[in-house]
């Protein structure tokens, strides 16, 4: 890069991808520090130079919030990280979190042109690098806030959806108040995603940033109970409401012994640790019964997080999943990290029953051994029992089977339409619900997805809330009435235009 001759596209692409260095597995399982080391300036510039600045950058479309990726990569390459940070912030205000937890392999990096022949550009790692650089160097973030409009918006929930919506509406000049049920902000980013993947400091700085912009936060407010949506709009004078309450209602296994002591939902286990700091007991007084032999049911991202947490708390962890590794819903990277961290996997094992002792503590798990059938009509191979069974000794079990949507708000609101799984129904174009002036986004309308999709929806909702507040909202709304209608699936094509 020292000589001024620009690189050719071929030269750029054919550079090997800079892999993210990780801390050694043996050491990292002894603490809750972050696992990836992070890029150096040199590595970052080198990786950024792999981008060929193609004419039709598909990566931008592959990003649910539409970051101008080639532009920020170019800035990184030239060494202007501050400029790159500003570029990213034009569209994404949680880059440090997204750089860490987004499934880039299914989004921007999946469609990267370079990836057609070589490894795709490491966009996620670079986003993370830029955000960390910005934070470590205390670079000023200067959002342009439009003059006050005098309109008030209530945001319910302070997860990625709520925070994004708050940000987008605040810069448009609205008066924004966020109501959160817990005693701190961040949503699943705090009480779900582990510290070794997303340090608390990052979330706290983003929250502080919003506060400095003039977004008001009120904690300990379970909307639906302490104030209803109608009261918010009627008595408190909010002109619009955004619901970003996530998907907080754990799915149960429905097998004998699920209520034994030591059997947790992933939500309870992770909340006790990451929200309530049970791992720092008794300095923090929330207890956790953490056994030595821990079984985890499920093989999604949440299950990986649970297992990697368990091993850090000194347990011998085994994963039980009724299909095989190929079908595991977790990101490949997460699965690999888990495997590196000495977690045992019992694929094709379907739990039948938890066995307990006379004090109601779990002592064992009984599983059916499965095999995959030939592809059925839907083309999928389903697990079918082989007739064989086995019993493993365990003293802690965590089940991670996903979530349904929490019913608190829908139950307290007559005209908020939900489907039979409790997912809030919205008009796909505008994120408007069946209730006038009320919009929704994030896991509450998808029934569980990712940080970035939640943010993408929230951005879209914010845009339409803005129009709504300006009296320019004249869409013909289509809010599904079919109780079987699925939550909205956010397709990138639909979002464009």
């Amino acid at each position, binding site marked *: 890069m020292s000589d001024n001759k620009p690189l050719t596209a071929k030269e750029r692409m054919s550079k090997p991808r800079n892999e993210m260095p990780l801390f050694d597995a043996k050491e990292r399982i002894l603490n809750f520090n972050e696992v990836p080391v992070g890029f150096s300036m040199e590595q970052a510039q080198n990786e950024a130079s792999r981008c060929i600045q193609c004419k039709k950058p598909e990566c931008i479309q592959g990003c649910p919030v539409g970051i101008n990726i080639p532009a920020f990569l170019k800035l990184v390459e030239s060494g202007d990280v501050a400029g790159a940070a500003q570029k990213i912030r034009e569209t994404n205000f949680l880059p440090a979190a997204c750089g860490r937890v987004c499934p880039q392999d299914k989004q921007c990096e999946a469609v990267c042109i370079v990836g057609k022949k070589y490894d795709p550009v490491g966009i996620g790692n670079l986003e993370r690098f830029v955000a960390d650089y910005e934070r470590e160097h205390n670079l000023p973030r200067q959002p342009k806030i439009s003059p006050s409009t005098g309109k008030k918006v209530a945001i319910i929930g302070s997860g990625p959806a709520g925070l994004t919506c708050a940000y987008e509406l605040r810069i448009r000049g609205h008066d924004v108040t966020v109501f959160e049920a817990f005693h701190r902000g961040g949503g699943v980013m705090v009480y779900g995603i582990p510290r070794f993947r997303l340090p608390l400091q990052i979330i706290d700085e983003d929250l502080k940033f919003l506060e400095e912009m003039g977004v008001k936060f009120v904690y300990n407010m379970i909307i639906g109970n302490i104030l209803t949506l109608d009261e918010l709009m009627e008595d408190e004078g909010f002109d619009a409401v955004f619901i970003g309450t996530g998907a907080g209602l754990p799915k149960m296994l429905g097998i004998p012994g699920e209520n034994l002591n030591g059997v947790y939902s992933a939500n309870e286990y992770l909340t006790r640790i990451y929200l309530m700091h049970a791992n720092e007991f008794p300095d923090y007084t*929330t207890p956790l019964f953490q056994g030595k032999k821990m079984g985890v049911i499920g093989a999604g991202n949440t299950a990986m997080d649970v297992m990697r947490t368990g091993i850090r708390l000194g347990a011998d962890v085994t994963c039980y999943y009724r299909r095989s590794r190929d079908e595991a819903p977790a990101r490949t990277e997460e699965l690999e990290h888990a495997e590196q961290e000495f977690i045992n996997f019992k694929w094709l094992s379907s739990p039948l029953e938890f066995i307990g002792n006379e004090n109601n503590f779990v002592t064992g798990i009984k599983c059916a051994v499965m095999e995959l059938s030939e592809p059925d009509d839907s083309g999928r191979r389903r697990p079918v029992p082989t007739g064989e069974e086995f019993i493993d000794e365990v003293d802690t079990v965590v089940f991670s089977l996903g979530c349904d949507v929490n019913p608190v708000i829908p139950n307290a609101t*007559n005209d908020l339409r939900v489907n039979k799984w409790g997912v809030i129904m919205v008009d796909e174009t505008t994120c408007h619900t069946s209730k006038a002036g009320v919009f929704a986004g994030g896991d509450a309308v998808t029934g569980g997805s990712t940080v970035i999709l939640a943010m993408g929806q929230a951005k879209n909702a914010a845009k339409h809330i803005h129009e709504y507040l300006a009296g320019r909202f004249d869409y013909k709304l289509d809010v599904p009435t079919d109780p079987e209608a699925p939550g909205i699936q956010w397709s990138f094509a639909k979002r464009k235009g």
Partner: protein
Amino acid sequence: MTDRTKKIVKMFASRDTQQLQTALDEIAGLSDLLSTEKMELASGLAALFYREHTDRKDPMNGIMENAEKAMASLGMDVVDIILGHIVEADLEAVEHFARVIGNIESSIDAVLAKLDEHKDGQYAVTNLLLAIESFKDKDAIKAIDKILLFTKSDNPQVKAAAISCIGKTCRAVDTNDISQDLKNKMFDHCFAALSDPKALVRLRVVKALGEMVRYSYLDPDQVNKAHKAFRAILGMDDYEWDVAYIVRNEAEHYLHLCRSGGNNGYKSAANVDGFKQDFRVISKRELCPNTYHFRINAPLIARKIQAGQFIIVRPHPHSERIPLSICGWDRKQGYIEIIIMSAGRTSTESTNKEVGDCFQDIVGPLGQRSHVTKYDGTCVVIGGGYGTGAIIPTARDLKKLGNRVIGIVGARSKNLLIMVDELRDACDEVYTTTNDGSDGIEGFVTHALEKIIEKEKVSTTLSVGPVPMMIAVSKMTQEKGIECWVSLNAIMVDGTGMCGACRVSVDGKTRFACFHGPDFDGHKVDFDQLVKRQRMFVDKEKIALEALKD
């Protein structure tokens, strides 16, 4: 019958939609019909309207619409025939006839005359009112006086139909074409029906008022009145909502139309320091050793909390979140009352708070309110320990509904009996029981309950307190076939249904105590599991308590 009408009427018998349409087209082609011919055709068409057509996609629907138009085109000559059908037709057919007559010019007088003729026949009147709904402009205005009379009917069906008719009028007649006096009358009549005991009537009233707001029929005062009514139905001001879901649903639908913007005179929660509550201890009183009664400033929770609901408390930033029952509140002064017995670490840290100290976090109201209704027999509320406070709000609610309420308080010994005077204020009678006989009946709360059952018919019980007490009450009431509510104090974390820590087995199914409860049917609760789950963290609790002492 003339040949040409005979031919057409015959075609009406067909099941084939093509043929039916041809017949209808032929009517349109005849411009010189005699009065008798028109009547013949009308009778033929009428038969069509009685046909069953199964669903909305049925091609017959298009035919029906065209048939309505064809019939209306026959004009005044066929009005009598139509009215004859309207007063008797079945529910589906009548809608067709109603639409037809609304489209025949100057037919309104005939309809009103028919209304006079049949004014005592419930079915005829409701059908005629339905027909009136389809008139527009001046015709519709003519009918209003008559309709208003029927809004006072003793018959709920007629009353509902009349009110619905008024709502429709607002859509059909521009507000500038109708006198203020008449509009006021419409409003007053509808408003008066708001207190009707029948949900159907109230539903129609809400709709009619809503339509009046929508079509600018009302002056600002009237809009305010409607607004207040809708709020009351939704339980927004006095927390006693309309029991009928359909009415609430309708009120919610129209509420936003009334939104006056800006200050509508209701006390806003935001006045409470931008929704922030400080959870300061206002007063503290020792009830018995280790057990304290606290008043805590929490204006937003105090506005909303109901009997049976609870809160989750975190005394310090390092503390766990523990659920606590509520034993009272003052909505105006903005405080809640709780009883805390210091047992483990967190409850001890809570009882260490003094007046002026603040709790770190309090979240609520949580859970469902207690089941209260009017019972035939006596209601018995039973408390032990902190639970004695928790039963007071429910006792008060039961009493408000006109129930006879008896309280029982149990303790080991006289000096441990708490909240007895407060409970006396809320009940008709209170029994105390002590294990050592130092006060009231010697023995357990069940001894008192048995005495009451011997004396009078008991319909329901609610117990809050130690699990053995709730088990004993459940057993006794089951034997005697008495309803039994128990309030379960499971271990909790979030209190909203997010984590599942509070799982309990009720009737073999997993339930979340924080969200489905805390009150459950005591006869169906797996108490054994509850007790064992409560003991999940005993070792840890000991360590935490020791750490506090160091």
